[in-house]
């Protein structure tokens, strides 16, 4: 399938993101896929700042800022209001970080997914609370440093498997995507736009500030995450049909870890432990994809 990517830009220069920010690219690509007939619901996140300071805004579509845990419920209300006014064209997009999705907003998201509310939910995942200064979230991976998981006691639990949790609500479409592969990301957003019901896209989104990585390496790191199997690209339709979108190159996980200082304290055996977990999760995914 050939993909035509819109030349139109829906976010402006002059936004307030850090250099190398994955979240900014995520919004840029998602809006390219959805177009101007989109209303964004934005809970507390880096994007609350990236959007700009009143009276300015860096997005060219309507955007509603809301409380941290309410992306899915506000989106439900907006969609209902559009429907009663006879508007079936506008896409409602909830755009939330990992904290708002994996943690504080999970109840609202689960409620909306169970009701199969008709909106697209994009989680841009930078694996910690970056806007408040790099505190761990339940998306933070095992072994990572954050300001609340210091190197003397780094994160000792695995990342929550959010896609499987949300897909288990039997929503029509759930997928992972990465800012490292915009073509795949935009194709998924475009596909999601053509489906009704709750659609969930989990976007891998490096944060140089929080990951202590070079700003110029964000894309490389995002791609390495796919090819070390740390963040595989796949889709789940109707809760059961798994489909892997990209064959990883099977690179050692160390290739990915070594570009980020948040993992610099890891000893050899911890890296081996991460490698073992990544391999096991991949096997688990393969089994489900084959069924």
């Amino acid at each position, binding site marked *: 399938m050939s993909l035509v990517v819109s030349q139109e830009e829906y976010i402006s220069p002059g936004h307030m993101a850090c250099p190398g920010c994955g979240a900014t690219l995520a919004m840029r690509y998602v809006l390219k896929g959805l177009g*101007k*007939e*989109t*209303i964004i*619901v934005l809970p507390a996140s880096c994007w*609350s*700042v990236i*959007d*700009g*300071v*009143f*009276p*300015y*805004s860096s*997005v*060219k*579509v*309507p*955007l*509603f*800022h*809301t*409380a941290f*845990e*309410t992306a*899915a*419920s*506000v*989106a*439900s*209300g*907006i*969609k*209902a*209001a*559009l*429907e*009663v*006014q006879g508007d079936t064209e*506008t896409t409602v997009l909830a755009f939330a970080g990992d904290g708002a999705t994996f943690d504080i907003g999970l*109840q*609202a998201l*689960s*409620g909306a997914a*169970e*009701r199969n509310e008709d909106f697209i939910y994009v989680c841009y995942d930078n694996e910690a609370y970056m806007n408040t200064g790099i505190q761990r979230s339940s998306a933070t991976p095992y072994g990572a440093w954050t300001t609340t998981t210091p190197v003397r006691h780094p994160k000792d639990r695995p990342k929550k498997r959010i896609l499987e949790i949300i897909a288990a609500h039997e929503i029509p479409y759930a997928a992972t995507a990465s800012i490292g592969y915009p073509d795949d990301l935009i194709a998924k957003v475009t596909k999601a736009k053509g489906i009704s019901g709750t659609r969930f896209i989990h976007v891998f989104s490096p944060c140089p500030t929080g990951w202590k990585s070079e700003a110029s390496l964000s894309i490389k790191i995002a791609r390495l995450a796919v090819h070390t199997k740390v963040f595989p690209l796949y889709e789940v339709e109707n809760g059961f049909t798994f489909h892997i979108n990209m064959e990883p190159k099977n690179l050692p996980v160390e290739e990915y870890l070594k570009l980020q200082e948040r993992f610099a304290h890891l000893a050899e055996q911890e890296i081996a432990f991460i490698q073992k977990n990544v391999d096991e999760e991949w096997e688990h995914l393969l089994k489900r994809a084959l069924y």
Partner: protein
Amino acid sequence: MIKVIVGNHAVSYGVMLSRAQVIAAYPITPQTSIVEELSEFCADGHLNAKFIKVESEHSAMACCIGASAAGARAFTATSSQGLALMHEMLHWASGARLPIVIANVNRALAPPWNIWNDQTDSLSQRDTGWLQFYCESNQEVLDTVIQAFKISEEVLLPTMLVMDAFFLSHTAEAVEIPETEDVDRYLPGYKPRYKLDVKNPHSFGSLATPDYYQGFREKIQEAMKRAKEVAIKADEDFNNIFNRRYGIIEEYQCEEAELVLVTSGTVTSTSRTVIDRLRKEGRKVGMLKIRMFRPFPFEEVTGALKDVEKVAVVDRGISFGHGGIFAQEIKSALYSQSSKPFIFSYITGLGGMDVTPQVITNIICDALERNTPPEESIWIRGKL
């Protein structure tokens, strides 16, 4: 048409007649039958609204916020813990200047568990930027729902209608159900001045620097002040069509009164009978019912009380570490007056403890007998 209905269904009829477009709600006793009836109205096509059965009260208010921001007339109902859970979003609704209407059935907060009436839940939300109306009868409840949308949409602030658990919510009374055409004439379809619109894109609620932020807060206070005049006008317009009016306060038998009892909600009805009896006995006592609590009707309250010797306030809520909340508000309103009555605060009726005619009589007699009020509120004792 007159129907004998419980207070909760009076709310439902008010919402249907107001043509709410989005309703989002979560069940909680004693509110539940409001939204049960509304879901029936929606299912039967009597009300053309989207009903979102959310997973929490926090999400109910968030849904209403989304719906209102996107240009729909939005409604929810709750009680007690549910209102407390919504607290964050109550600020969000008023800060975003959204004319949402909520019915809160006053119920005590836990622990210990208690499903009965008191006002601490709604009074705890007095600083959230919502208009608040305390209702006395099922008719007033129905009529206030319709007035609430009218006022909210004019001043762009949300309104909380407040009613007593069980005394109104589950008690049936004869209620005149207004004709649909008359309500349509009074409250036309919602035309939002600002909304999320892809043809006219804006960001709502962006980060604002300190100067701007305080400016926005000043605008809310200005809207609150204006809400009083708008509410008075809305009540007059309502009277012109439906031949019923409530005022923002009501003075009852206050002429030459030595003592005025201040009430809100259903205690007012009980107090009327007590005042009538005491007047017959030659006691110069009157009553002031407070219907609008936010914005606080300073002029009207001070006008009614400034020349009275004593004021006894029935408080069915408490600010711990201070005292009765209505009493505090009345004291502060009267501070700027040159003549200041003695204000006695009586705390009673918490958690549904019955406020009988005898309790009201005791309160009035106690205040008449005392020379000056104690610093703290006076408790009408419960068990323990």
